[in-house]
């Protein structure tokens, strides 16, 4: 998995994380670590481009959730506790979508795991990059 970033100046500044490759238990913590760096650098709105992610395991869902928690300014989850982090997901999903972290263009298997897990109620999912950026 590789992550590159872009920045977009709209109504608010948006950081785009372009993720490439499978997200699984071997690398989901790298994704969280990358977002933590961006948050430390001032990022407060993140669009995660999933168009080049063929596979996302439940560990990837943990990562997405952790990033949203981070951006809410809460204690960023300890990477070693990352695996426990999604025990919080159920409660968060129930609170409804947050708007600091949004997702762009997931491939069909990733859409399926987002839906099956209910994470599509916690993240806005966009199909169009410009529309996604304008929505922040």
């Amino acid at each position, binding site marked *: 998995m590789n992550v590159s970033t872009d920045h977009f100046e709209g109504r608010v500044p948006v950081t785009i994380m372009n993720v490439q490759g*499978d997200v*699984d*238990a*071997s690398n989901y913590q790298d994704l969280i670590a990358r977002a933590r760096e961006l948050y430390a650098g001032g990022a407060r709105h993140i669009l995660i481009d999933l168009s080049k992610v063929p*596979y996302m*395991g*439940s*560990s990837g*869902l943990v990562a997405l959730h952790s990033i949203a928690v981070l951006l809410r300014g809460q204690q960023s989850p300890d990477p070693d506790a990352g*695996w426990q982090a*999604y*025990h*919080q*997901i*159920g*409660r968060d*999903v*129930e609170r409804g979508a947050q708007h600091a972290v949004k997702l762009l263009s997931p491939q*069909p*298997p990733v859409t*399926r*795991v987002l839906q*099956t*897990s209910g994470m599509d109620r916690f993240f806005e999912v966009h199909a169009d990059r410009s529309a996604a950026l304008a929505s922040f």
Partner: protein
Amino acid sequence: MDQVTSAPGTGDFAQAELTVPADVRYLVIIRRFIHEAAQVLGAATKSIDDLVQAADELATNAILHGYRGQLGWIEVAVRPAGGDLLVILRDQAPPFDPRLVPEPDLSLPLERRPVGGLGVYLSRILTDEIRYHALPAGGNEVILVKRGVRAAK
């Protein structure tokens, strides 16, 4: 008697088998293997994706919760059974029956449901059946079943 023994002795010439170290870096190999083997066996794309995800979740659990950093192996086999497709996962970690992980009680409002992981839940949703055997010599065998996914050959 649906316990599956190692392929090269059984005379079952349609089965493909993989053995990898119990290390999360090898999950990608497990996924590619199941994907390609299921494709050779004529499964449809969506069914393949589901089996790959279910197996990835349970193999991840075996590595992280089962072996917990101990050295060990994960064995994976893909075999046809009529129009069905089976993915067999074996490990030598302490006995753990994923069928005993409680189902989330969907009748409760979300905030009152017991908080649990997603891995076992996803693996159930994405397959038609999960069979489990504690192996006589120690370790676990989980069989993921997806029905009616192969084009007639």
